[in-house]
């Protein structure tokens, strides 16, 4: 298939795809594997959990993920304090052999909105400890700025709450973050529900999209993964091509000159 993808750099790693994909909630491990392949994503999010003694399900899952040959982005999902997320990140770094971490510090159980204070605190500690921090943030400009101030090269503002599928809730905030942080890699994380939401994020100039539920919970996750791949390519190509200015009134696209039966007053 013809592709318009151009290589881009994420944390000093050259990638073709601008889609980062999660590994949770799929109907089966095999559908997960096929959906991730269909997405052509090169970055897969994983997590860590308490292991029951003798339970090898985590190892089987890890083998499938390794077979995909993607870059691994471990998360700190479920953490509620800076200290919890720091310890979780350190354990994930040892398990997965990467210094990348999707830093999640949840401040509100209902919306899963990040705790901005502990998020910044944890990001600073982890960066000093050699991590490449991918912070999951809300669409608050000042929070995103603070994360950059403590050394984050990547910031991941949400489109809307995790798993809500509502798309970009506040386009004004998102446009502002893009404009005010022109040198930061910005990934839209969480809340993407359908391919058009992802295309919109790329059209706005975001560097990529991280999603999970929108693919995993689709009726057909494998085809939905392809749809997102194409939407993200379309959005990026559209952004690079420069959109036309909006106008308040209609302007004919067909020239008026030479119109038959045209009688000028």
């Amino acid at each position, binding site marked *: 298939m013809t592709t318009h993808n151009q290589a881009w750099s994420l944390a000093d790693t050259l990638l073709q795809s601008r889609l980062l994909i999660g590994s949770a909630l799929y109907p089966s491990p095999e559908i997960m594997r096929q959906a991730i392949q269909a997405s052509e994503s090169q970055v897969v999010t994983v*997590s860590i959990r308490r292991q029951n003694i003798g339970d090898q399900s985590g190892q089987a899952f890890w083998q499938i993920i390794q077979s995909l040959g993607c870059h691994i982005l471990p998360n700190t999902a479920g953490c509620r304090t800076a200290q919890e997320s720091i310890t979780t990140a350190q354990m994930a770094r040892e398990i*997965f052999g990467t210094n990348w971490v999707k830093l999640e510090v949840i401040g509100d159980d209902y919306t899963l909105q990040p705790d901005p204070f502990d998020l910044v605190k944890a990001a600073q500690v982890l960066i000093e400890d050699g991590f490449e921090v991918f912070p999951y943030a809300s669409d608050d400009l000042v929070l995103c700025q603070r994360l950059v101030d403590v050394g984050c090269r990547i910031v991941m503002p949400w489109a809307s709450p995790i798993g809500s599928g509502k798309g970009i809730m506040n386009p004004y905030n998102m446009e502002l973050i893009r404009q005010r942080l022109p040198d930061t890699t910005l990934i839209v994380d969480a809340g993407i529900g359908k391919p058009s939401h992802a295309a919109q994020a790329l059209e706005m100039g975001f560097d990529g999209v991280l999603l999970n539920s929108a693919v995993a919970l689709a009726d057909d996750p494998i085809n939905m993964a392809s749809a997102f791949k194409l939407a993200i390519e379309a959005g990026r190509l559209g952004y690079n091509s420069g959109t036309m200015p909006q106008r308040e009134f209609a302007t004919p696209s067909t020239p008026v000159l030479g119109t038959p039966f045209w009688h000028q007053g």
Partner: protein
Amino acid sequence: MILLINDKPTESNAQTLASLVLELEIEGAFALALNENFVPKSQYADTFVNENDRIEIVAPMQGG
């Protein structure tokens, strides 16, 4: 002695994290935290465990 392993009281004869890992026959990709602090594998042999220590053992898992 009793250790709290993943929040479950567990009887153990292990003196160090290295012997605990052997005792529990933990294999594959995993990591440990002792009393909420990460302990790298390279320090298991030198890290002693004591009564009522809280030990988290984690493995890879699906995530988004």
